[in-house]
């Protein structure tokens, strides 16, 4: 036990005396959560649009004022000719143009139909789509108000309700993802680097020629990172609750346990990486390329797995992060308990045991 404590103490010295690792440990999580929380967002706000109003009557004025009073759009300019539409798009500021046909009001009353065209700049398809949807809903809202008196014979009234994230805040989606990325990276990369560093500096040679058995060395290496990763996970959850107001609907305790499980999975992966790489550089490259990309791209963090091609969907199953994200979303947003996420938990547990088994098998008690 004394040996173990001595070893762990040494590891903490290493961590706290290396600015680079300190930065990765504590700077990165905060930076990432802030970045994803504030800067990267799918929501639209104050999008600049232009209006081409050929009628300039009561109806169009009312619609325009409805649009400009919403927080989503601000009207940057009014244009007169159709030819100008392309011009304003090319300048880049205007993302959409609303084009009312001539005699809008009159047609609406007499022919019961009037046309308005929504032209969007689709260089960013997601934004274009969202803008078009928002304007559509403002228009149909207006229409509804006008038709309140009249009852149609048949009418379908869609009532959509967004559950678990009623305001469609993207930070709800990012928090579980960022938490996963950070725990994975910090745990796997830092342990694999710290073990390979001993190999590279030759100190592993001395550790091998000592009464410490490989198991003690590995546990001693990993222990500080379990501890630090738990602090990280807690910091992320606290930040998301207090800064981004993401609810934790389920049990905080269960969330903690699942996080510890995922941390151990990542650490086991880190140990496995360290057994196959000889230098810190290799360990870092494998961790970054082999872990970071799948975690971001294939875990359902940013891109929904259901819309991926089938081969990628299959591959996504071996990414531990996928399962952890499902668990975290379940607990934080849906408030579910272990009775729902037990399957994902079992998958993670199985992966962890596999990684540990593999690294124990691959771990060398000698130099070759």
């Amino acid at each position, binding site marked *: 036990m004394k040996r173990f404590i001595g070893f762990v103490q040494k590891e903490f010295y*290493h961590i706290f005396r290396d600015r680079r690792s300190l930065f990765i440990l504590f700077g990165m999580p905060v930076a990432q959560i802030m970045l994803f929380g504030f800067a990267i967002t799918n929501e639209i706000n104050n999008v600049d649009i232009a209006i081409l109003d050929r009628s300039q009557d009561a109806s169009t004025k009312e619609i325009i004022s409805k649009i400009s009073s919403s927080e989503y759009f601000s009207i940057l300019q009014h244009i007169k000719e159709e030819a100008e539409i392309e011009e304003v798009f090319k300048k880049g500021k205007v993302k959409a143009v609303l084009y009312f046909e001539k005699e809008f009001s009159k047609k609406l009353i007499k022919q019961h139909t009037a046309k308005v065209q929504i032209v969007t700049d689709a260089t960013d398809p997601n934004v274009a789509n969202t803008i078009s949807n928002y304007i559509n809903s403002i228009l149909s809202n207006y229409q509804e108000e006008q038709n309140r008196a009249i009852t149609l014979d048949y009418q379908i009234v869609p009532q959509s309700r967004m559950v678990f994230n009623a305001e469609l805040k993207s930070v709800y989606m990012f928090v579980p993802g960022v938490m996963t990325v950070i725990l994975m990276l910090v745990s796997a990369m830092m342990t694999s680097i710290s073990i390979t560093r001993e190999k590279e500096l030759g100190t592993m040679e*001395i550790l091998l020629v000592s009464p410490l058995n490989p198991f003690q060395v590995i546990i001693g290496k990993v222990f500080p990172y379990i501890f630090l990763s738990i602090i990280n996970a807690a910091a992320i959850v606290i930040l998301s609750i207090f800064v981004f107001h993401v609810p934790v609907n389920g049990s905080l305790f269960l969330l903690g346990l699942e996080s510890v499980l995922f941390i151990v999975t990542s650490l086991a992966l880190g140990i496995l990486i360290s057994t196959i790489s000889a230098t810190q550089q290799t360990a870092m490259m494998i961790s970054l390329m082999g872990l970071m990309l799948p975690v971001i791209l294939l875990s359902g963090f940013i891109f929904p797995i259901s819309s991926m091609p089938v081969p990628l969907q299959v591959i996504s199953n071996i990414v531990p992060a996928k399962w952890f994200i499902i668990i975290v979303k379940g607990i934080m947003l849906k408030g579910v308990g272990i009775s729902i996420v037990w399957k994902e938990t079992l998958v993670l547990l199985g992966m962890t045991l596999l990684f540990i088994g593999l690294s124990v098998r691959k771990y060398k*008690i000698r130099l*070759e």
Partner: protein
Amino acid sequence: MSIHIDHISKSYGKVNALDDISIRVDQGELFGLIGPDGAGKTTLFRILTTLLLPDHGSASVAGYDIIADFKAIRKQVGYMPGRFSLYQDLTVEENLRFFATIFGTTIAENYDLIRDIYVQIEPFKNRRAGKLSGGMKQKLALSCALIHKPKVLFLDEPTTGVDPVSRKEFWEMLKRLQDKGITILVSTPYMDEAALCDRIALIQDGRILEIDTPKAIVEHYPKPIFDVGAHNTYLLIEKLNAYAHKHSVFPFGEYIHYTDQRDGFDPLELRAYLKNEGLQNIHIERTKATIEDTFMELAKQ
């Protein structure tokens, strides 16, 4: 018998790092492995410290088999690898304390053993190991290798890259450790250090050239050897090499060590030849063979 090496061979791919090596080192002996870089010294150390497995042969250290009882050996030996292998970001004291802890002991418990060495670096005990000078690093590494009171000490080129004064001190420390009953196996590429060992093994290209006391090895030198000097050393070497009867010509300090093929060699004859070739201030004197001469002679065969 403290170290018993029996027909050990080891190869890396096609390269024979060790070829049928057998050495016996007695309890409390200071034994030197002398050979140039790439002779296989480090490989032998790694096999004895259970870090590598030999391809053939067997060996035991302190009575334990290097393969079957590797765990016991790891508790009993102190190992100082050729490359400085301590934690550079830990201080002198932290390094020492760490190694004491992992061997289940404390600095205080075995302070007697390391005192002579450690007092010299103790003033810098709060300095990071990475910031020490070469000589101090070696002293710290030796302290760390000794802190658990090992029965056998393996030192792989401990004085490479260390200044001459520190080298001398280092060897004095080894002598004192030997007095305390520790068996020491030390390797070095420096022939002058070989004379300080009880016995030495000359090793080259993975083969043992000879094992004996330094004195006996020198006495075994088969030919009379001469110091030859002249005003122009470069020209002298050239002319000696061109001499029809030369056996060997090696620069050694300010002189050239020369041996002749013939049994009844007359130095005057050589002097006349050299004079004829335009050399001045010619000096020829019989001298004693050194370990280096022996090594060169054996390596030639």
